[in-house]
């Protein structure tokens, strides 16, 4: 199962190669600086793939896998994201599958700044006040990153 997740994650990188010539160029030149966002976008793709495959046990497996792979080297170029950042990315990908929206990697890369911001989830105060829900937040977040 962990192998399925890792494969889905790596296949998402292939989507990135197809979606962005700049990404390929900077990767090949060794000048890629925002490694983290591309890794998190690959987690997004893995979440989508696992949802579409109908694997209900994927989440706990992903958590266990990603817990061993996440890192806290905040200032390192090759920082891949913290545990919760990676889980949130995976969940957003699952939401994309839930709402029937195919992964649009080109749009995700274009809107990667918004993607990182939205990984924080909905504001706790809004949730408690009932002015938003996870479902509403996820739908709006997807609309923003797929724009």
């Amino acid at each position, binding site marked *: 199962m962990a192998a399925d997740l890792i494969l889905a994650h790596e296949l998402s990188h292939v989507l990135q190669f197809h979606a962005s010539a700049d990404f390929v160029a900077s990767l090949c030149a060794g000048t890629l600086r925002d490694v983290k966002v591309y890794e998190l976008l690959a987690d997004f793709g893995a979440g989508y793939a696992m949802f579409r495959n109908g694997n209900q046990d994927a*989440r*706990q497996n992903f*958590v*266990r896998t990603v*817990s*061993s792979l*996440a890192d*806290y*080297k*905040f*200032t390192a170029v090759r920082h891949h994201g*913290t*545990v*919760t950042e990676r*889980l*949130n990315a995976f*969940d957003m990908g699952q939401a994309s599958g839930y709402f029937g929206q195919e992964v649009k990697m080109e749009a995700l890369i274009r809107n990667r700044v918004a993607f990182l911001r939205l*990984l*924080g*989830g909905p*504001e*706790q*105060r809004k949730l*408690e006040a009932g002015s938003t829900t*996870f479902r509403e937040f996820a739908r709006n977040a997807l609309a923003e990153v797929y724009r």
Partner: protein
Amino acid sequence: MMKSLTALVLTAATISSVAVSRDKVDFSCHDVKSMIELLEDGPEDVVKQVADDPVDYRDNHHIGVDVRNDAPSANAQRNNLPSELGLLYGQRPKHVTDDDFATAGESFKRGLGAFYDCFGKELLTETPVSYTRTSRGEGIIGILKDTYKGRHIIVQYGYFWDSAHATPIVWQTIVGYGQSE
């Protein structure tokens, strides 16, 4: 006294004044499950055991745990229930650096594994918790299949730092009643 307490959020907490030890930072399945067992007996039992004799509870259940009554949250007022029990551990206030967060993050990675070992298939679902709006930290909140009167038991585990109030990095494990189904 008892009547008024039932409207309050009860938090069993300890903020240690000494440097935190690794075993307190790590997720303790035994401690959390004992809190869950208490919650499963109902809020009246929580009040009776924790609030009625906090010293006894501290000494006989969770060594070093202190009992504190917080202002009730909107949720607690609506439910008229003590909504949660928690264990909190923290280091004395100091300048918190990225290295401290890196260390905390690595501890969280270990704790998350213990969290899943502890609950596994008892979990209905779970989601990460972000503290980025008002402070820095991370956590996870799980909804257990166990219920009390139609309310699922929830467990939250993680750490945070409130930059506005120069707190230490605080580790918290909270168990409580979720919304009714």
